[in-house]
């Protein structure tokens, strides 16, 4: 069961890598968050803890529903170019992603203290998500991609937290959710301003401040 969900996470992450347009990127992120939600639900079911249910619920509400919707609406509002602006094309990105997958696995194996070799699979997936998140932020030009990248990385951390350390303390988890939500809103606010001032959201062109 977990494996299937993990598989879903991986697929959705790869989808993010090959996404060329903003909408597809947001959609991929939604899938990813949904898979994560399922995973959390299963853990909650296994451990029979109330707070984990709440966390899963929050995850669903915020990351699957609220944020993607907010971003969609936002995109419509600013009527920005759909193109994500790729520094390196999708094929190459995919190669990178494969490399990252391996890297994440190696890293997780070294890190995770367990006799059971497969225990590192979930953390590896989490690391992979973080890596891809950062990858997106570095190699995609628009501001939107950076937000999604950040969220993806954050998703990875969530996964990591809930597997390796049995989740964060409850109120910390809530606070982090709140934090993420607020930060996305604030970033959206700034994208809005960028679009207004520069008439594009291609942050690569923001290079007035240098040296």
């Amino acid at each position, binding site marked *: 069961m977990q494996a299937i969900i993990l598989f879903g996470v991986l697929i959705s992450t790869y989808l993010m890598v090959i996404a060329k347009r903003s909408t597809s990127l947001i959609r991929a992120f939604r899938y990813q968050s949904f898979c994560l939600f399922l995973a959390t639900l299963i853990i909650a079911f296994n451990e029979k803890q109330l707070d984990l249910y709440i966390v899963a619920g929050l995850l669903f509400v915020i990351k699957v529903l609220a944020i993607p919707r907010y971003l969609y609406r936002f995109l419509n509002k600013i009527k920005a170019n759909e193109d994500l602006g790729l520094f390196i094309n999708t094929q190459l990105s995919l190669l990178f992603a494969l490399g990252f997958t391996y890297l994440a696995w190696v890293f997780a194996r070294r890190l995770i*203290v367990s006799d059971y070799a497969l225990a590192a699979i979930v953390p590896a997936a989490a690391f992979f998500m973080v890596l891809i998140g950062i990858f997106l932020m570095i190699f995609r030009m628009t501001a939107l991609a950076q937000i999604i990248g950040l969220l993806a990385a954050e998703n990875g951390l969530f996964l990591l937290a809930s597997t390796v350390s049995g989740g964060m303390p409850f109120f910390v988890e809530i606070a982090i959710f709140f934090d993420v939500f607020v930060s996305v809103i604030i970033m959206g606010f*700034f994208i809005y301003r960028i679009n207004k001032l520069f008439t594009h959201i291609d942050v690569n062109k923001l290079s007035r401040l240098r040296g």
Partner: protein
Amino acid sequence: MEILFILGAPLILAILAFVMKNKKAAGIINAISYFAVLSCALLLLKRCVLSECRVSFFGFIYLDALSAFFIFTASVVTFAAALYSIGYVNKDVKEGVISGRRAGIYYSLFNLFCFSMFLVPALNNLGMLWVAIEMTTLISAFLVGFYNTKKSVEAAWKYIIICSVGIILALLGTILFSYAFAVSGVAKSLNWTDIAQVAHILDKNILKIAFIFILVGYGTKAGLAPMHTWLPDAHSQAVSPISALLSGVLLKMALYAILRFGFIIIKGVGFEYFGNLMLLLGVISLVISSGFVLVQKDLKRLLAYSSIEHVGIISIGFGLGAPLGFIGALLHIFNHAVTKSLMFFTAADAISVYKKHNINAIRGVMKALPFAGVMMLLGVFALTGFPPFSIFISEILIIIAAFLNGSYFVAGLLLICLGIVFGAFIYHFGKMLFGNLPKGIIPAGEQLSAKFAYLVLLFPILALGIVLVFKQKDLIWIAQKLFQG
């Protein structure tokens, strides 16, 4: 229960500022309240140094001497910034740069920002610490982009994104710490007090990797090179009182976080690992920033790079280790916070007269602003480590530590870079301060509140600089207290 007041006051003030009509009155109330906060912080510091560490609110808040020290540092700078804001905002409103409503927003954000910064050192839970630091980023991003110009929005975007990435890595590090703790088989917790107690039995390998994440993550926020790139942009574009807070306090809060994790590392892995990493990043910051300071053309960016340099020095101080390096670094945190704020305020005054950030456009500050000019001149020497100002003491302590440690390379580099930065400062500020006024610049009157702010900032660095020369023993005693945790 001073901490309640320290944390509560900004929150109340934030609401008050938002609803109050008379923004000038709001500013004055602000300043007065921050004076109260400063006094409370002083009391707190005294109590924490003299008596034991305290954990309260279900282990949620933890105060030892170190946190009290950071809170105190923050309170000094926030008080001065609150004072300075009165005149600054007033002027902006008068000149029509910002509306009265936005002035209210400014004060609210200011207070929220201060709240978040006071919160950081008070927290026990490492996860909440992370949340608090992220909160500082989010709030201050508005203050960076406050003027809503192309440059400021660009700066704000870079600030928020780069810091968020950093902070994501820090969260990863935090999770790994908690993983290390979880693996050790003790109860599930993210409280620093719990983890620090069992640090020696934690898995070294995980701790090491976790700390790298923490270092890079919070290091981004602290402005350690090469993750410093957001810093000059944000500092140069922020509202000037906020630049001072960013440089003086925010960077230090990130350092505080590193330090908290560092204690666990020192206990769990050994000092050398922590020291070497800090030294490495410190040296890189120092070298890179000194180059940038030399060829800088923008006044506020110049100061921002100097902040990177000083963070580098602090980091080197921590890297060199106890006791001298630590004392020096801690002292330097305070000194730099205060001195750099002074510089930012005077720079803001100059910029408001000349309407330009460009160093070449600013000439004859001494004539345009006699008081601020003198303060700037003193600030230059204070910042570059001349006695009788206190940075001299902290720098010399760090240099001594380097020599005692046998890190001659670091010591030499430190001396060279300090020399370069000093030369650059004299070069730039000599041109700005002296000489004749350019045409069309009318010497404007100086704000009374600003003058007060300068004096508030000048007093501690001068007093410390003079007193500390004679009182090293007490200093060591206090430092030992600071590291009881």
